[in-house]
């Protein structure tokens, strides 16, 4: 996607930094230090650049384009997305969301206010919860605490209990639909139930 050209330009105006040069609207490849191991370059963005001191000013359109590029690259949830997800899942407060997700009490508040960002892996996890409401409800109710698997084995498979929506509408791959049913589990301890040590 091409970077948008700003509708209004400062071209020809005196640079407020050096008071000597003038701004010109130019296209540059902007390097973005998103993370040390993950630098990105946003190509062909429009900026106002001083012809004397080189100061760069980002028009609003360019700033938003760079923000979108960074968000796309990092795949981390933004504050607005987190707020929308929380509301869609019907959670009234940020503290409650923190508790459901097993976070520190104020962590979700910090994320939603933009003070901190969730990691990429945590963002994936929250996206799953947002996309599979059954999984979120399972987490919210702490459903695993209600089942005593030794004395009362569940009537339905673990997968169906955990993800009822997904079980009702299985994806095309049968392995994805119910991995445990397709793949018999091998007990790695079989044959090792009795170990005799002898000391002489």
């Amino acid at each position, binding site marked *: 996607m091409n970077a948008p050209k700003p509708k*209004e330009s*400062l071209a020809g*105006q005196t640079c*407020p*930094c050096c008071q000597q040069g003038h701004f010109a609207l130019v296209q540059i490849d902007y390097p*973005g*230090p*998103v993370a040390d191991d993950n630098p990105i370059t946003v190509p062909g963005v429009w900026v*106002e650049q001083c012809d004397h001191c080189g*100061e*760069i*000013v*980002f*028009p*609003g359109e360019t*700033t*938003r384009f*760079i*923000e979108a590029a*960074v968000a796309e690259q990092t795949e981390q949830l*933004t*504050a607005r997305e987190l707020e929308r997800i929380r509301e869609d899942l019907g959670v009234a407060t940020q503290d409650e969301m923190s508790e459901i997700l097993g976070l520190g009490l104020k962590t979700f508040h910090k994320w939603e*206010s*933009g*003070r901190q*960002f969730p990691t990429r892996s945590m963002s994936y996890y929250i996206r799953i919860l947002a996309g599979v409401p059954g999984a979120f409800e399972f987490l919210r109710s702490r459903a695993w605490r209600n089942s005593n698997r030794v004395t009362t084995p569940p009537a339905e498979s673990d997968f169906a209990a955990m993800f009822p929506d997904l079980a009702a509408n299985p994806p095309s791959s049968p392995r994805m639909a119910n991995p445990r049913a397709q793949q018999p589990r091998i007990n790695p301890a079989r044959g090792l139930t009795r170990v005799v040590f002898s000391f002489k």
Partner: protein
Amino acid sequence: MQKCEYIRHDDLPPLATESQIKHVQRACELDKARLGQSAGSYAVYRWRVHESQLRGAIISHIAAGRRIFLKFAQDGTRRIIPNHLQANVSLFEDLDIYVEMVLMGNEMIIINAHDHMPITPRLPQ
């Protein structure tokens, strides 16, 4: 909590005028604020905030009746640089930042925005 030092009252530059503050508020509200290089880098990559959140922090600063100052030239003459304003703005609950703005036409450039330096006294809010 980290201790911070503020600029002494006698050393403070004059306050921005009412019309200058209105200009800043209008520019922030109408999306007429551009970002300088340092402001852009800090906002997008260090604080990880959207430019709109930075503008929102400035609007909140004004709405709360906090102060915006003019800016002295760096040559020690106490000469005011025309149309340059500065403030100590709360970006988050526990993060105050230095913001320098330049008024141009009906627009504004946030020419500098960065964390406070540990050894440099801050502007009061």
